[in-house]
């Protein structure tokens, strides 16, 4: 057991649970507070929160681990898509979804396409976000077993249940405010680590030369083109199709705050990845990739090699922070999917706020236990598992979502066919393993597009009201929206 690191990590988790408990009462007051923090989060908090939600354990450990194993171009393919997450979502959907005035992503599908599409979307969200827990739990298990010196399986169980309890108690209030600390620690930690590495190697040029002399293939494209491109599109679309990221957008005070939060969040994410690039180069220069049981442990090995124990402990706390914030946002998306989108909207419309919140707690625990059971024997590298989640969400509702906002003619039948068809094709391709890793959405997303457009055109157009609603998504300011509403009343 590494005493110094363990004490720092323990104190850190205790502090975060304290914040969860502090916000417990506030979160229980209404489901709006629970899921979107009462839509009252400012730019500074929002920027760190949205960056921390996007920057999962995969961003740090997964990108570095896969970058060292598969080469620097793979790391950059990951970053090329991942840094685009927030800007791309902001360009295409954020403002429009805010103006739709919905609370969760399936809510949007209900408003735009109707109940059947909403239920299908909620089921897909629950499946994808539950599986998304697996890479987070894998990473927390690796760090936990390293710091505490316990078996990986026990580390997964203890840490997984620990941060589930905390997320379940506080809802979005607790998650957003702890994300401020988590985002700050994560950013500071990786930048400090990068500074130590650069100082040790006397600059980036020497570091790259050291990495290339240890591993001459480090700068090469080692995989088929499709593997890089599939990873890129899955990540580029992640902000559009990830319910956990979209829900963060609803938590901001107003549209301007949401945009500025996304812009600064992009800068935070950019700095994280540039520091991650330095860590990947350091990992390659150590030449230890072949000696580790799990390539995702390279990040931890770099910390151990370059940082003194106290700073290393803070850095590991930062890594756990990134896992915790992402996992918490996912758990919240799963619980919203079941308790709100399926139960409240379709089974028991008169359910009280307390009952919904209680159901959310139960769903979170169940999702977490399922995630833990799969993570005990993880099926792939962290980066690849995250790529699967992104690819599945893109293939299923990426196209119906974007067309629902931008194309009036898209209708319920088209959206349902595109969503179901894309999801099924993706799952079939993953299970057959006939394509390079993460290349599945290259086939499945165009099929979803063809189905959405084709079936929409073959069936009746949406009603005038729905088409007018699509126009309202694209009004630019509140005043304009109010003017439109006034003219309709008249």
């Amino acid at each position: 057991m590494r005493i110094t690191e363990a004490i720092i990590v323990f104190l850190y988790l205790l502090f975060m649970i304290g914040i969860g408990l502090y916000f417990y009462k506030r979160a229980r007051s209404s489901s709006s507070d629970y899921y979107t923090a009462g839509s009252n989060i400012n730019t500074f908090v929002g920027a760190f929160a949205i960056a921390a939600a996007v920057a999962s354990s995969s961003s740090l450990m997964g990108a570095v681990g896969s970058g060292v194993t598969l080469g620097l171009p793979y790391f950059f393919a990951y970053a090329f898509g991942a840094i685009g997450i927030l800007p791309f979502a902001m360009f295409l959907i954020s403002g429009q979804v805010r103006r739709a005035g919905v609370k969760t992503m399936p809510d949007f599908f209900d408003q735009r396409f109707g109940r059947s599409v909403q239920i299908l979307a909620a089921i897909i969200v629950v499946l994808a976000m539950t599986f998304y827990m697996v890479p987070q739990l894998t990473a927390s298990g690796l760090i936990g077993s390293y710091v505490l010196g316990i078996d990986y399986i026990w580390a997964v169980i203890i840490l997984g249940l620990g941060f589930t309890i905390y997320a379940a108690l506080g809802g979005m209030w607790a998650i957003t405010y702890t994300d401020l600390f988590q985002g700050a620690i994560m950013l500071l930690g990786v930048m400090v680590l990068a500074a130590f590495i650069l100082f040790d190697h006397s600059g980036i040029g020497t570091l790259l030369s050291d990495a290339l002399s240890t591993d001459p293939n480090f700068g090469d494209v080692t995989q088929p083109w499709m593997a890089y491109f599939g990873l890129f599109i899955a990540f580029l679309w992640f902000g559009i199709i990830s319910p956990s990221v979209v829900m963060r957008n609803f938590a901001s005070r107003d549209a301007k705050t949401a945009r500025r939060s996304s812009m600064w969040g992009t800068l935070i994410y950019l700095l994280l990845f540039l520091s991650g690039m330095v860590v990947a180069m350091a990992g390659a220069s150590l030449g230890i990739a072949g000696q580790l049981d799990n390539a995702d442990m390279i990040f931890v090995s770099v910390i151990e090699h370059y940082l003194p124990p106290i700073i290393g402990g803070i850095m590991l706390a930062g890594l756990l922070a990134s896992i915790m914030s992402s996992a918490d946002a996912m758990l919240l998306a799963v619980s919203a999917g079941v308790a709100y989108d399926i139960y409240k909207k379709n089974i028991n419309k008169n359910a009280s706020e307390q009952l919904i919140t209680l159901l959310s707690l139960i769903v979170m625990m169940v999702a977490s236990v399922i995630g833990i059971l799969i993570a005990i024997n993880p099926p792939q590298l962290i980066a690849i598992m995250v790529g699967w989640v992104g690819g599945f969400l893109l293939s299923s509702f990426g196209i119906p979502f974007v067309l629902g906002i931008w194309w009036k003619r898209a209708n319920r039948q088209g959206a349902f066919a595109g969503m179901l068809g894309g999801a099924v094709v993706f799952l079939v391709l993953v299970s057959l393993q006939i394509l390079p890793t993460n290349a599945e959405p290259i086939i499945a997303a165009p099929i979803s597009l063809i189905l959405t457009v084709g079936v929409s055109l073959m069936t009746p157009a949406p009603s005038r009201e729905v088409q007018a609603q699509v126009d309202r998504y694209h009004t630019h300011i509140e005043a304009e929206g109010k003017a439109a509403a006034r003219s309709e009343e008249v």
Partner: protein
Amino acid sequence: MTKRSKFKDPGFILAIVVLVYSAFVWIWWPHEMYVAGVALTAWLMLAGIILWFGLAIVYVLWIERVEKSVKKQTERRDAHEDY
């Protein structure tokens, strides 16, 4: 309500910029040309991530300008109608 083409929306235009740069990188894919020992394709992607942040700044400033001008137009129109 001021009617504005969706295709003139700053978000739509900047999304096209993202797609054009991405297409340039993925179609060219210079993986056998090396700069400082690393495939050129990797450096193009590094340039891309910096471009993404630049586009995010452009979007925020642009849309705030659009909102300001729409707000002014709406206020002017309301004042005229009241009169």
